[in-house]
């Protein structure tokens, strides 16, 4: 584009010497050509953005549309996007069979604890790798990468056995007479998160290392000259200016842990986790579907005149509503933090 414009201008310069009137028309033609090109570019860009946005939002929009669809209208051509007879019954049924309010509170709290522990562990480890190098720290960082590459399921069995018979140097056995069974307790997941072996922990250490490496060294040096210890520098100077990095890791950790089924299923398989509840509901069953069984269990809690069917399509619809309910808190959370989140990404330079 620039090349073409340059050529045009050369022409114009030559033309100017020969004929001023002719050059005038040439200038306007070049300008028009340029603005047309620009318009095409802008239109094309917006078309691309809008169509891609549509594809990204498609599952979400479909879920929302389905949530309000009247059960009798499933598959009806009139109710694909805007339900003909919008109802709240599906949402009531779905939230009742998921025990939604309790699930939201439980999932939020247990996820938040994991997020805080995971973020702090990763921040300390990342700062150590970025600034407080010691002999062997390069090798240990290579091992961090190794933990990212090796799937967590490779260590699931021994971890399971270990947490079932948890003990620190035989202390618990001495005091209580038997080893601690941490399975089925949130403590097992907190322990893993605090020790840097939670969901995607290796990736978070990596992100923090890159982030801290990008911070200006002068600030820490000045604090050191002023007499601050290394721990104080980290807690009082580095952490407060690292909000973008902490936000990036915190948001990713929150979202991933919220959506995760692997860790809860292995260590704390309770239906209070919304995702565990959903995977239980959507699991294949021999006879009556799990959704119908769940509806049967809570039928006394439902209003007597509520709409419910016993078809396969209806079960699928209820599962869709459940999925929407699960990510609803995430969407709200994301809309609140997204501006700072994207700014954080820009300033953090998480990739170095």
């Amino acid at each position, binding site marked *: 584009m620039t090349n073409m414009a340059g050529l045009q201008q050369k022409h114009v310069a030559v033309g100017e010497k020969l004929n001023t009137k002719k050059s005038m028309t040439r200038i306007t033609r070049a300008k028009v050509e340029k603005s047309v090109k620009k318009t095409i570019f802008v239109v094309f860009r917006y078309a691309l953005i809008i169509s891609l946005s549509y*594809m990204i939002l498609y599952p979400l929009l479909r*879920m929302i549309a389905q949530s309000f669809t009247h059960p009798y209208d499933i598959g009806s051509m009139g109710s694909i996007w805007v339900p003909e007879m919008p109802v709240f019954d599906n949402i009531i049924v779905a939230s009742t069979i998921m025990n939604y309010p309790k699930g939201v509170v439980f999932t939020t709290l247990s996820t938040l604890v994991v997020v805080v522990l995971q973020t702090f562990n990763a921040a300390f480890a990342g700062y150590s790798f970025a600034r407080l190098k010691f002999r062997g720290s390069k090798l240990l960082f290579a091992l961090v990468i190794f933990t*990212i590459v090796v799937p967590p399921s490779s*260590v699931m069995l021994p971890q399971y056995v270990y947490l079932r*018979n948890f003990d620190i140097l035989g202390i618990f056995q001495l005091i209580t007479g038997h080893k601690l069974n941490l399975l089925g307790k949130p403590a097992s997941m907190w322990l893993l998160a605090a020790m840097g072996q939670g969901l995607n922990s290796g990736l978070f250490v990596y992100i923090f290392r890159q982030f801290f490496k990008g911070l200006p060294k002068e600030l820490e040096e000045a604090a050191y000259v002023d007499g601050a210890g290394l721990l104080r520098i980290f807690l009082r100077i580095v952490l407060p200016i690292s909000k973008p990095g902490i936000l990036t890791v915190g948001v990713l950790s929150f979202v991933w842990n919220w959506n995760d089924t692997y860790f809860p299923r292995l260590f704390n398989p309770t239906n209070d986790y919304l995702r565990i509840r959903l995977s239980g509901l959507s699991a294949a069953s021999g006879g009556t579907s799990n959704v119908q069984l769940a509806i049967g269990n809570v039928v006394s809690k439902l209003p007597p005149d509520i709409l419910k069917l016993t078809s396969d399509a209806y079960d699928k619809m209820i599962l869709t509503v459940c999925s929407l309910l699960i990510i609803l808190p*995430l969407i709200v959370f994301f809309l609140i933090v997204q501006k700072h989140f994207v700014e954080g990404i820009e300033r953090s*330079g*998480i990739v170095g």
Partner: protein
Amino acid sequence: MVKSRTVKQKSGGWYYHLGLTRKKSLWGVIFLMPWLLGFLIFFLKPLVESIIYSFNKVKVVEGGITKSFVGFSNYVQAFTVDTIFNRLMLTMLQKTFPQVLVVIIFSMLAAVLINGKYPGRSVARTIFLIPIIMGTDIASASLVGSDVISKEIATTSGMADFGSRFILDVLTNTGLPTFITGFVSAAVSNIFGVLANSGLPTLIFLAGLQTISPALYEVAKIEGATTYETFWKVTLPMLSPMVLVSTVYSIIDGFFRHTTTISGTTYGIIKRMYDVAFVQANYGLSAAMTTVYMLVSVIVVSLVSFLISRVVFYYD
């Protein structure tokens, strides 16, 4: 921590005499201690144990486990007796690579799109980062639901699979090799899987774009490079380290979330290992499966990162 602090306050204590480098090393070890202990207790030891389990018949009993050595029979069983595992491994390798390729191209395009300056950019950014919160399973669950509906609509209106079949027809008629047409139609039919997986790679590329110095673009402009040339000669080389990071992440993630449908039932590779261990109580077999899975992951990731790192351009 407390101890070293008290020592520090006493002038003449050993900490006081340490040089800055030594102090840094000391604190480096202290800062890393939680991670290091976690790595040893919850990663390295279990990893070694898991490999040992895979050569044994393992039973969980009260207060621990018993194991008896059986050689390679768990591995033989994983590949020959368990009919689902080998299929899952095969489809995992088949499906992940094309998907990762499309994900990387798409997320790079998405990052470039949301990086420019134009009215409405913040809305576009929010939408393009939504795949991060959606989660692959949720997106696919919602599509299964709408799949039932679209199939019903398709059968009632006689438009069964119109879209993807149309594309396949057009491509077959162009005379392109079958593997290319297969690849394109697979990519098109899997577009929602691609979109759902593109969240983090888009984020990585966006962060990467932010680190490119504007001076480079200025120079390119002064030298008379076109927008097209600038993309290939400036943006792409500067983004190449991010290609490495996001490819590795996408492959690992793709493996981890892999599911395949065999005669109507959907199996997940991780779910399969879990079921073999905790439903069938065949711990040795499960350990053999995880070991195979780990070896495949490590080999594939090292190979891919070796190949990519040969073309990666590092600015500094």
